[in-house]
């Protein structure tokens, strides 16, 4: 009746997961009950859950990412603690638990922290920067978000019901095949990622179509902000790469569920094929994560140097070059599989070639600061921290791209340090920079500066104290994923990394604290003009937060740094007093399609994992019915009458004029 599911799936005899599950369940229940008692549900349903507004969906993506950062970070703390104490000792985490933790840590950080964070920021900002009202497919956008949330939910359910994969964040066969992983862990992994993969693909289609087909009048490709270019490149990669993940995990699922032989040891399965397929997705994936971060840094460095971005066309060329080359380097993840010197060398050289456009970007940011007036606001601190940290990570990456060096360092802690170096240094720092930079736009008040700076310094120093020792440990021969070890030489570096982890944890805690402090102080931190940083692109031309329709009248763009030109023009012309010609605006209607569809996807996913076939059928019918109901809708849009548009816009313009009056307009 319930497939493989029975009471033994709940970890009553294992204290650590039991306590963890208890804490999480308690936290979730507390939030749900508090929201209910305060009467927030109608508001939440109407304004957020069923919202198809890209700004709301973007915020929800980022919120998901930050919550999952706490879970992934907790996994990290547990791993570092184990490796600090597990010298000539079994530590406090038995192997089967430690192995789940490092697998969950990687999976969560990449798929449910990194991806949602950058997709959320792109969703929030790109339509504003392009001067349009929403993304190309607003309801699909909501579906994509909620499917991603489904994936995150399923992974967290594995903590309470059953187990998670014990294979690492990429389930290499034959270890991930049914023979060697008979439990439900790998199934939680595969179904969670198949479902959230659909969400990611949907986001990719949406953002590519938005950038290519939905730009305001006059905004040619070479007048788009850099963040839009990196959004384009990253989402092209999503469209080209994520189907590979879908197909490969599908093959693994077929092996596990139906006894197929894609990757089994028996009957001709080919383990090397899995390696090639999964890394053909895996390498573009890291560029999917890092390109939006590069875009954020272009925006931030330019704004906080009060200077136009240096070498715009060069940056565009470099971005598209990275996009294309990222598909040609995947073999560097398995130089040691024995492909032969020619193949190894070619892929090694290709991997180095990608360092060229990346280096060009760093130099262009450098020369953006040159001749500028640099303000060390929190986003700029993250950017400078990124530039230094990423260069070091890039150096170790190019080093690993030299096959003979990789022959000594593959899968070691040197590798672990390298990829954390580039992911934390670029993606996480970029996410925090973008979060701080665009927070006022989303919510109407800035984040508290003091806690932000403290969070930055603890995170920066904590990163170096944690990961530089790991480089050393790797050079001393320590391999990754060791639940315990006996080599005395590694011990001091594990202890150092443990200390660094404490600093990093404080950094993350300060980020959370910053949010609470800022909410409490929000009236002092209020952004009344919509342009708190003296920005250069069109999102700063709207109020904070923008009205539902973003722009009362779509702007007319005549050059790069669209909003900067508007401001220069306004300053010179004493702010044009003529009012635009207000018209009725059609906006897409909210829809519960995304949420309901994701509900059925969760049911299906859970049922597939536990082999509850009748529930799978129910879920599938429900999901299909949801789409039919959506298709039957008669009114896709609602009208905001011109008078209402005018009223909202006049209020915003008045606030903006007041601020410019204070600043003094006349030259």
């Amino acid at each position, binding site marked *: 009746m319930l497939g493989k599911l029975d009471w033994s799936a709940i970890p009553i005899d294992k204290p650590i997961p039991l306590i963890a599950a208890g804490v999480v369940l308690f936290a979730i229940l507390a939030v749900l009950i508090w929201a209910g008692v305060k009467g927030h549900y109608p508001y939440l349903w109407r304004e957020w859950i069923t919202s198809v507004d890209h700004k709301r969906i973007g915020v929800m993506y980022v919120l998901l990412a930050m919550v999952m950062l706490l879970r992934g970070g907790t996994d990290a703390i547990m791993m570092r603690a184990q490796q600090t104490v597990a010298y000539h000792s079994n530590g406090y985490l038995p192997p089967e638990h430690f192995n789940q933790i490092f697998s969950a840590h990687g999976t969560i950080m990449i798929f449910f922290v990194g991806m949602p964070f950058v997709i959320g920021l792109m969703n929030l900002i790109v339509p504003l920067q392009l001067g349009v009202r929403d993304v190309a497919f607003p309801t699909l956008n909501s579906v994509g978000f909620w499917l991603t949330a489904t994936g995150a939910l399923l992974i967290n359910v594995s903590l309470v019901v059953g187990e998670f994969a014990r294979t690492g964040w990429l389930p290499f066969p034959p270890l991930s095949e049914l023979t060697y992983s008979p439990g439900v862990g790998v199934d939680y992994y595969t179904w969670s990622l198949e479902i959230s993969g659909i969400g990611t693909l949907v986001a*990719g289609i949406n953002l590519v179509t938005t950038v290519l*087909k*939905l730009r305001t009048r*006059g905004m040619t490709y070479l007048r788009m902000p850099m963040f839009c270019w990196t959004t384009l490149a990253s989402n092209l990669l999503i469209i080209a790469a994520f189907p590979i993940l879908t*197909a490969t995990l599908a093959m693994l699922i*077929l092996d596990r569920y139906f006894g*197929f032989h894609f990757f089994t040891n028996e*009957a001709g399965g080919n383990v090397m094929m899995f390696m090639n*397929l999964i890394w053909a997705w895996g390498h573009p994936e890291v560029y999917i994560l890092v390109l939006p971060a590069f875009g954020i840094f272009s925006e931030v460095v330019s704004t906080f140097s009060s200077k136009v971005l240096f070498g715009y066309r060069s940056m565009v060329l470099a971005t598209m070059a990275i996009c294309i080359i990222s598909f040609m380097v995947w073999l560097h993840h398995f130089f040691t599989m024995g492909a032969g010197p020619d193949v190894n060398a070619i892929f090694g050289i290709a991997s180095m070639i990608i360092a060229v456009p990346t280096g060009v970007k760093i130099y262009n940011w450098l020369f953006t600061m040159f001749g500028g007036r640099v303000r060390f606001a929190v986003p700029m601190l993250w950017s400078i921290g990124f530039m230094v940290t990423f260069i070091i990570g890039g150096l170790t990456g190019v080093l690993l791209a030299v096959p003979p060096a990789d022959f000594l360092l593959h899968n070691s802690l040197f590798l672990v340090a390298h990829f954390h170096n580039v992911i934390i240094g670029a993606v996480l720092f970029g996410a925090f920079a973008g979060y701080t930079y665009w927070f006022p736009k989303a919510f109407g008040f800035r984040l508290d500066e003091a806690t932000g700076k403290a969070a930055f310094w603890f995170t920066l120093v904590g990163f170096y104290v944690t990961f530089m020792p790991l480089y050393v440990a790797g050079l001393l021969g320590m391999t990754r994923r060791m639940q315990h070890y006996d080599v005395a030489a590694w011990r001091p570096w594990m202890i150092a990394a443990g200390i660094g982890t404490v600093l990093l944890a404080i950094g993350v805690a300060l980020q959370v604290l910053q949010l609470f402090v800022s909410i409490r102080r929000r009236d002092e931190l209020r952004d009344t003009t919509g342009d708190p940083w003296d920005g250069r692109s069109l999102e700063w031309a709207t109020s904070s937060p923008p009205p539902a329709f973003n722009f009362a009248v779509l702007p007319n763009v005549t050059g790069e740094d669209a909003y900067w030109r508007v401001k220069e023009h306004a300053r010179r012309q004493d702010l044009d007093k003529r009012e635009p010609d207000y018209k009725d605006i059609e906006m897409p209607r909210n829809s519960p399609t995304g949420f309901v569809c994701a509900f059925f996807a969760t049911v299906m996913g859970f049922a597939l994992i536990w082999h509850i076939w009748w529930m799978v059928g129910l879920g599938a019918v429900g999901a299909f019915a949801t789409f039919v109901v959506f*298709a039957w809708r008669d009114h896709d849009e609602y009208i905001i009458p011109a008078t209402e548009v005018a009223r909202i816009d006049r209020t915003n313009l008045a606030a903006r004029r007041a601020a410019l009056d204070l600043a003094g307009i006349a030259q």
Partner: protein
Amino acid sequence: MTETTFAYAQGDPHRLRGIQQAEVAHEGPAPKRIVTAYGFWIFLLSDIVMFSCFFASYAVLLGQTAGGPSGAQLFDLRSTAAETALLLLSSFACGLASIAADVRSARWFQAAMALTCVLGLGFLILEAREFADLVGRGAGPTRSAFLSAFFTLVGCHGLHVSAGVLWLLTMMAQVYAKGFRADILRRMLCFALFWHALDIIWVAIFSVVYLIGSGA
């Protein structure tokens, strides 16, 4: 349409005819119909990437018959030819349905869609029979890696056709209930693109899987 072609041919795609102030480099956001079709094309490209993975795995595992039967021993090319004919004809019928939608003829639309459905179902029935026959002969997907790859690639296409049939029936119901509304016409455009794309993928399948696979 001739006006547009003429304008492009004369190097004046925005039909400015030399008016200075009309020289806007970019007109603004594209209309809904174009945006919808564009997004769906991109989805189709992503689907083709997924199929390429299955094609790749088929190519890699072609020789891995684990002592069992190979393509040459299994494939019945007459059945494949019949499936191909059915699918190609169904694409033609789908084209007729698109034209009927263009001229807003509900009767011809429903008839053409019904024909598309019947031909598509015919394809699926033949394919299901082929699969059942193979399984019955001990050449099911669990027999060898080659067969796993075969069943997955061809089966994935079959699943897409099945989903297409469900979509087709939904479109017929939509037009019956609500007529040729703008959003329904956009969805019909997407459906037609999907159905034709499945046809193209089938051509690749019968070339790579059946024709080349028979020689292996």
